[in-house]
């Protein structure tokens, strides 16, 4: 087996491993491997996260492994491991994409983006999530690809369900898949269209030229490229045997071979071994001996300054944008969030929490602008789509940056994420004397946070009757939102949860005197 084939096998295995971790994110219990492993191993998320939050994030120390590997071996992570890279390779293989060498003119762009993101993180804004490949691919799988697969499955399921003898076998298949792979219901995300579009554009560029995203945009690739300097695994060309056929340049995924084919742009080389395999004269080797002929394009100082300024501008525009208070009142953060500020600084929008929640309570959604630009696309609870399951701690277990702290069950049961309020103009017992209290039925706290008084209600025809009228017991309510989700009132619900940040973060301001 050639090293190139070994690389392909490794890529497939890592990709399958990534998918496996993605699946088991929703397992109720018994996960032996941290499902956020790929995210934790991402040095870019670690560096920007630690800088932006001004905090040590121990979970991310594992990214040191990738840093050391890059120092010694170059960008093997990009070529052999990265699930985004493998997705793109798969795309270009299916699309039979050619290489366009002139793309090497855009290699600089990713370094400028990196500098911009680093500057923003120094200013306390974690913006790298927009383009970090691990975050991007995990997010896209959660919000776009899995829902499409689930919808497709359900479409076929519903079609076949019309055939009576197939019903029971179909239910058995579905139930066993729900236990392992599928969520129970197709789920929907409000930002799926936007995120799907971004992903489509990235895939689209892959059909233009191979690894376009990695060459030109990926800030993680840029960071790893900068670490390549002392690497010992390098490409060498035996100049005597080389016939200058240029085939190596053609097959180089990242255009790391300049017009002098003997040279290598080490920062760009992802150690894919395509050139070694392709060379008809067998004069290319990649090994641990000696230094290569390095080709280096330098950055212009002017552009570096502009990139830094771009980061400052990005941070500034984010920081000065307006948040409508009525909108932000809907930002119910996952349990285990310590404070809104810290949450926004740490969250890298990987949507592991949303992935975990989708098959549990279906509560967490990516925000749009509910919390302003600073918390764009951040996860928050929407009681219209689901609710926070009382006995579930999944989202707290899968956060790579500890934006959501891990909670044990006992703590989770008492963790306040919001507070429920009755809209007495819509709640039926208040509005027209209809008995209801579905909210009380579903309220999960052992001593119910929704209780009722029995009151006499006089109807328009003069008759009267004693009905149960619900109310919220404020110091028992944890804001899980099941009352809003299950409220049977058509249209806007008769009870709703809002965030109660100061109450949630235990400032001592709330509670009965």
């Amino acid at each position: 087996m050639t090293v190139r084939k070994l690389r392909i096998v490794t890529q497939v295995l890592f990709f399958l491993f990534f998918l496996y971790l993605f699946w088991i994110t929703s397992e109720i219990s018994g996960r032996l491997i941290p499902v956020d492993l790929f995210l934790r191993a991402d040095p870019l998320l670690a560096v920007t996260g630690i800088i932006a939050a001004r905090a040590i994030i121990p979970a991310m120390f594992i990214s040191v492994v990738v840093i050391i590997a890059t120092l010694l071996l170059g960008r093997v992570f990009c070529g052999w491991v990265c699930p985004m890279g493998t997705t793109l390779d798969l795309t270009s293989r299916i699309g039979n994409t050619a290489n366009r060498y002139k793309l090497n003119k855009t290699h600089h762009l990713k370094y400028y983006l990196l500098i911009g993101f680093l500057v923003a993180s120094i200013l306390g804004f974690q913006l790298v999530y927009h383009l970090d490949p691990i975050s991007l691919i995990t997010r896209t799988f959660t919000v776009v690809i899995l829902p499409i697969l689930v919808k497709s499955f359900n479409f076929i399921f519903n079609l076949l369900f019309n055939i009576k003898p197939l019903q029971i076998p179909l239910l058995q298949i579905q139930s066993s898949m729900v236990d392992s792979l599928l969520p129970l219901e197709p789920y929907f995300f409000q930002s799926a269209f936007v995120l799907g579009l971004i992903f489509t554009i990235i895939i689209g560029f892959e059909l233009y030229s191979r690894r376009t995203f990695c060459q030109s945009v990926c800030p993680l690739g840029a960071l790893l490229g900068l670490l390549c300097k002392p690497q010992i695994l390098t490409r060498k060309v035996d100049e005597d045997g080389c016939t200058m056929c240029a085939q190596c340049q053609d097959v180089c995924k990242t255009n790391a071979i300049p017009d002098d084919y003997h040279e290598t742009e080490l920062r760009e080389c992802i150690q894919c071994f395509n050139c070694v395999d392709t060379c008809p004269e067998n004069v290319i080797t990649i090994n641990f001996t000696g230094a290569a002929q390095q080709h280096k394009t330098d950055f212009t100082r002017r552009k570096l300054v502009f990139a830094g300024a771009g980061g400052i501008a990005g941070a500034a525009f984010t920081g000065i944008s307006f948040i409508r208070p009525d909108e932000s009142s809907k930002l119910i953060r996952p349990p285990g969030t310590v404070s809104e500020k810290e949450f926004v600084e740490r969250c890298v929008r990987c949507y592991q929490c949303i992935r975990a929640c989708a098959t549990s309570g279906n509560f967490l959604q990516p925000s749009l602008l509910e919390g302003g630009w600073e918390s764009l696309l951040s996860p928050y609870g929407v009681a219209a789509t689901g609710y926070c399951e009382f006995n579930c701690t999944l989202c707290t277990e899968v956060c790579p940056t500890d934006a959501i702290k891990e909670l044990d069950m006992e703590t989770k049961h008492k963790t306040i994420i919001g507070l429920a309020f009755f809209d007495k103009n819509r709640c039926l017992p208040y509005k027209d004397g209809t008995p209801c209290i579905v909210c009380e039925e579903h309220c999960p706290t052992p001593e119910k946070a929704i209780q009722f008084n029995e009151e006499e209600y006089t109807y328009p025809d003069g008759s009267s009757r004693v009905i149960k009228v619900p109310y919220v017991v404020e110091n028992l309510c944890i804001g899980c939102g099941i009352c809003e989700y299950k409220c049977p009132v058509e249209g806007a619900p008769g009870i709703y949860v809002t965030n109660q940040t100061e109450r949630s973060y235990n400032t001592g301001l709330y509670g009965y005197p």
Partner: protein
Amino acid sequence: MSGHTNRREFIKTTGLLTAGTMLGISGSLWAEIPGNELPSIVVVKNGSPAENTRKAVALLGGMGRFVKKGDTVVVKPNIGWDRKPEQAANTTPEVVSETIKLCFESGADKVLVFDNTCNNPKRCYANSGIAEAAEDAGAIVSYMADAGYKEYDMPEATHLKKWAFYSLAMEADCIINVPIAKHHGIAELTLGMKNLMGVMGGMRGRIHWKIHQYLPEIAAFVKPELTIIDATRILKANGPQGGNLDDVERLDTIIASPHIGTADAYATDLFGKKPTDIGYIINGPEYGLGEIDIEKMNLRIETI
């Protein structure tokens, strides 16, 4: 719908049949012994959940009275909540598995177990212990699929005219209703009739609006052949999902009756209530759901 009518006719005919009350003889044999009148409701106490269940069914004439050879049977427990058995929010797993075994012993071809849960179904099925117990007993346990719900007209109902029910339940040859007895805010108690909401789709919360009128109509429409009320543990407050073990009382009791209204009426006694305290029980006889006056019931109480 034809299967539905058949079941109903089947009950009428078999209900007229009489049988003895000895243990250990299969249901089909009971039906052949003439002359003895079967109790309309039985209460068995103090045995294990499985023993109580088996004895109760035997006292009613055996499962063969309800399940015929080759039948597809739906055993409908309460799996509504993500709670553990000791929290008494769901039916005791042993009661469910024993019921399934009895169905197979009477020649059932398939036993289906499902419930439209209130919490996440995966969590409810797993943490209630019911999915595992039912599968071990040989039943087909599945989550309820959207495609399985169909809108049904309810011509005999005066309040609820139309609703989505699970077609696999409605088309089954026999439904064995296995609720747990517990407290419930709006319905006062959730027993046999309330448990049938688990084969309904749609926005079920709306059933609460006229719950005492709707529940008997639903029970008359779904018409389970047998109701086995699990009172191994009962939940006396903060129902229907509880969570506080202080609200749970251990009774080790099983109540069984082919008449859902009779079973529900008797079960009120476990909570120190009267049948006439609860609207949907009062309205039951109007729909032919059985005697609700405990004094007038053909009742048989056994202690193991």
